[in-house]
């Protein structure tokens, strides 16, 4: 579903992402791990079509993101870091606007926004201004927006950042459920999170892929340590 080959991104002289290659097959939930500034967000932004890579290629569902950006973006539901939203709009209004922006017609937009509001527990705040919502609810609005056009691929940049434990648990459950229909690439710092939700791990450090594999295989490689130790070891060793 997602294929990335030799992706490199320079900000001026600074290489944020260096020669990253990986592949995500259909139906997988892939955890994208790494310390702050490792290039997770940059990679995700490139995949979502906000930035362009300096070199390298990437495909979403077989569509080249550089040559066919619009078609590729239709396949992606993207939740940016910190989940920026128009604070002066109401939840339902926002979702309707986003539906139109994503090219859905009026009827489909209404159906889908009803469905995603149900899915992300937003029914009770549908008439509320986004600016007055708590962080947890805003995150859900962002997630609802990502789901709106029923894209096959979800790219979620730190979907649980800034949530309280109960909300993290709810979101985790939701992501697990969504994994049945969507291919998901999610980044996070929270390691237990990864252990509970992800089928596959990609650990990235200083813009390069440090290791990749299923949770068990990564544990096995490093001699049955827990993920935290593996993470620290990998990000210090390089």
């Amino acid at each position, binding site marked *: 579903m997602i294929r990335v080959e030799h992706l490199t991104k320079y*900000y001026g002289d600074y290489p944020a992402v260096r020669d990253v290659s990986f592949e995500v097959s259909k139906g997988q939930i892939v955890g994208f791990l790494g310390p702050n500034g490792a290039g997770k967000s940059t990679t995700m*932004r490139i995949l*979502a*079509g*906000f*930035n*362009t890579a300096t070199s390298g290629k990437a495909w979403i569902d077989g569509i080249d993101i550089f040559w066919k950006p*619009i*078609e590729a*973006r*239709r396949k*992606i539901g*993207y939740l*940016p870091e*910190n989940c*920026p*939203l*128009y*604070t*002066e*709009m109401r939840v339902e209004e926002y979702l309707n*606007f*986003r*539906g*139109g*922006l*994503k*090219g*859905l*017609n*009026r*009827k489909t937009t209404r159906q889908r926004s009803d469905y995603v509001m149900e899915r992300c527990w937003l029914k009770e705040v549908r008439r509320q201004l986004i600016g007055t919502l708590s962080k947890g609810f805003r995150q859900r609005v962002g997630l609802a*927006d990502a789901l709106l056009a029923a894209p096959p691929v979800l790219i979620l940049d730190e979907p649980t950042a800034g949530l309280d434990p109960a909300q993290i648990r709810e979101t985790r459950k939701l992501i697990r459920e969504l994994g049945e229909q969507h291919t998901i690439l999610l980044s996070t710092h929270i390691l237990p999170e990864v252990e509970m939700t992800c089928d596959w791990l990609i650990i990235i450090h200083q813009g390069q892929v440090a290791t990749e594999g299923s949770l068990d295989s990564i544990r096995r490689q490093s001699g049955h340590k827990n993920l935290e130790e593996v993470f620290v070891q990998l990000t210090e060793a390089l």
Partner: protein
Amino acid sequence: MMRSMFSLIRREFAAYFQSPIAYVVLAVFLLVTGHLFALTLNQLTESGPRGVEFPMMILLGDERFWLVFLFIPPLLTMRLLAEERGSGTLEMLMTAPIRDWEVVLAKYIACYAFYIVLWLPTLLYLPILLNLQAVWDWHAWTLFSGMMVGGLGLLVILFFVALPLGMSFFNMFLMLLIGGTLYGVGCWMHYHKDAAHLVELTAKIDPFPILTSYIGVLLAGGMFLALGMFVSSLVRSQMVAALISLILSLIFIVTGFWRPEMDTASLTYRILLYFSVPLHFSKDFTRGLLDSREILFYLSTTIFFLFMTIRSLESRRWR
């Protein structure tokens, strides 16, 4: 593609009314034009040798008007892209399946639409500025003329109410069909069967200077809005965007202010004449003149700044 642009235009236009700025701008603008209209009215009703030849000259050729107008486009454009950049919502917007130029065009159209809304109330001054007299012929109201007026009304409702509110495409198509047919058939039958005027309008003051003034207003406004939008695409803060576009607009406005010591045959003056907007208005537009140099200047500057905005929005990709 059309749908996403349309959705964005609607949101951007609605966003004006969700912030207090729109109302402040509207109120101040009306206050100033209203005051200038009162001054024009004084001149028009003056007895003796005083008075005014072109009423629009007092409204739009006046320095007071331009001093206030200077602030309006920057206030309308400052939030367009700077706010999105500042709050990070640009990332949400640009990862939707919409092209960069579509975003720029949609935002420009929304802001231009608000600019037109700003000017709409001034149309109420026109009957007086034209010294308009209407003679209604009530016998001309037959079935056919009724059909014509009704169809026209339906079309007006379609474009100004249904389209902005966003009716379903099927209903809008139906409205277009019914309205169009009614209007077309009504016009045809009214022309061939009744052949009487519903209303006879007589303007006692030449209407063309007013038409050209409004053309000028639309052209010059388009230029200032494009400029403001370009500046807004460069910075993160709305305040900075407003200030910079204000300063850039000054070049086009302050150079046109009255300076009695200036020799009108000098090279400086002739150069100033190319780009100082108040001069265009006091010399040409408000006197019923359309100078192709000025029209070309406004259009090309508008297109230039729109192009630059698209480029500037694109620059996030390689920076």
